[in-house]
């Protein structure tokens, strides 16, 4: 009996089995009933969706232009941000309040160089 069970299980598990033993087991009505029971049981416990086949990961190929592009984008972002900040520093300071009086400065030439 155990041999009948083993050979039918091996058939269902896709394992190696002896064809003569399987023929002998299936010639027995109890063996055929066991086959039907095991097949039904396995159908019940198997997941509805088949497990997807795992594909071996393939190493990504090096693409030098991507590194160069990323570095260029970084430089552009930093440089653009600096220039934008510099421009904003000049133009967006707090507004000067209106003057209460206006005078004109007098040009002169310093003696002894610039201090």
């Amino acid at each position, binding site marked *: 009996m155990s041999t009948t069970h083993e050979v039918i299980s091996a058939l269902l598990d896709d394992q190696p089995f002896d064809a003569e033993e399987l023929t002998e087991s299936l010639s027995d009505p109890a063996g055929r009933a066991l086959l039907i029971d095991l097949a039904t049981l396995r159908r019940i416990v198997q997941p509805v969706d088949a497990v997807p086949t795992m594909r071996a990961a393939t190493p990504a190929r090096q693409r030098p232009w991507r590194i160069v592009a990323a570095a260029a984008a970084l430089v552009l972002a930093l440089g653009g941000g600096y220039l934008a900040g510099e421009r904003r520093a000049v133009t967006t300071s707090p507004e000067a309040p209106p003057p*209460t009086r*206006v*005078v004109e400065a007098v*040009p*002169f030439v310093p003696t002894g160089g*610039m201090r």
Partner: protein
Amino acid sequence: MKRIPYVLSGLLLAARIAGAQTVDEVRISVAGFELSANGAEKPAGISWETGPLAVGKPGVAVFSMRGCGYFTAARPPNTFEENATAGWRVEITPLRWVRALDKGDGLSPTSEDIEVTLRPGESRPLDSVPVPAGAKTFDSHPCATKAVSLRVSADFPDFDRRLIGADVWLVEKLPNGKEQSQLQSLRGLPHRPMHFYFDSLPDGTARFDIFGKLLTDLQGDGIEISVETVRARTDPSQDPDGYHSANWFRSTLHMKPNEIVDVALPARDEPGLVNRLFSIRIRAKQIR
């Protein structure tokens, strides 16, 4: 800014001696200097200051020099140090000095009664004597000081609790009538320069820097401000660290509390900044 000559003269002050009066905030000081072997002169670490200058109220100090140009100062009735090789008696005001002690080769003149006009920041040498040959330092090393001197100077006090705050804007009047400005907030002592430096202004390939300084003087409930502004042109492609040309402007303002004064910088016939109008706008107050 108002520049007051401080005349230290026996003759000039004689007429005022009956009613001694304080002259502004200037201090007169006499300090010792040492001339090192390499020719550089540096303070010897001793000075005597008059405090608020009271014209006609003379003060006297006694200076001694010993060893390797080491100075000491004392007030009468103290006299010269015992081991001094040279000694001076200095009187302010009027300004008189006499080298009453000289154990070396005395050089003339050995005394002076001086009429001198000093503005704040200016000084004048009084006397100089060589350090005796063979003089040693405190730790018996050869002396590197060749000579010592006394110098009188006029200046505002270094320690002044009064503090001035000033907001300074660089304002550009745009063709559409609006204004574009940069702000610098400054703090400083009266009579001491408060410097401002605005961001560069691009104009074609050139750049312009506008910078300058304020000098303040508290007067009653107002502030007198001397404004000196420089508009300098640079060409980074030729000299990134220097200026190609510059224009100087100045103005003296008597500002009342809460007043905001616009100091217009006149346009000049110069390349760059054509048709661009700039001014320095100032609001100042005494913080303490």
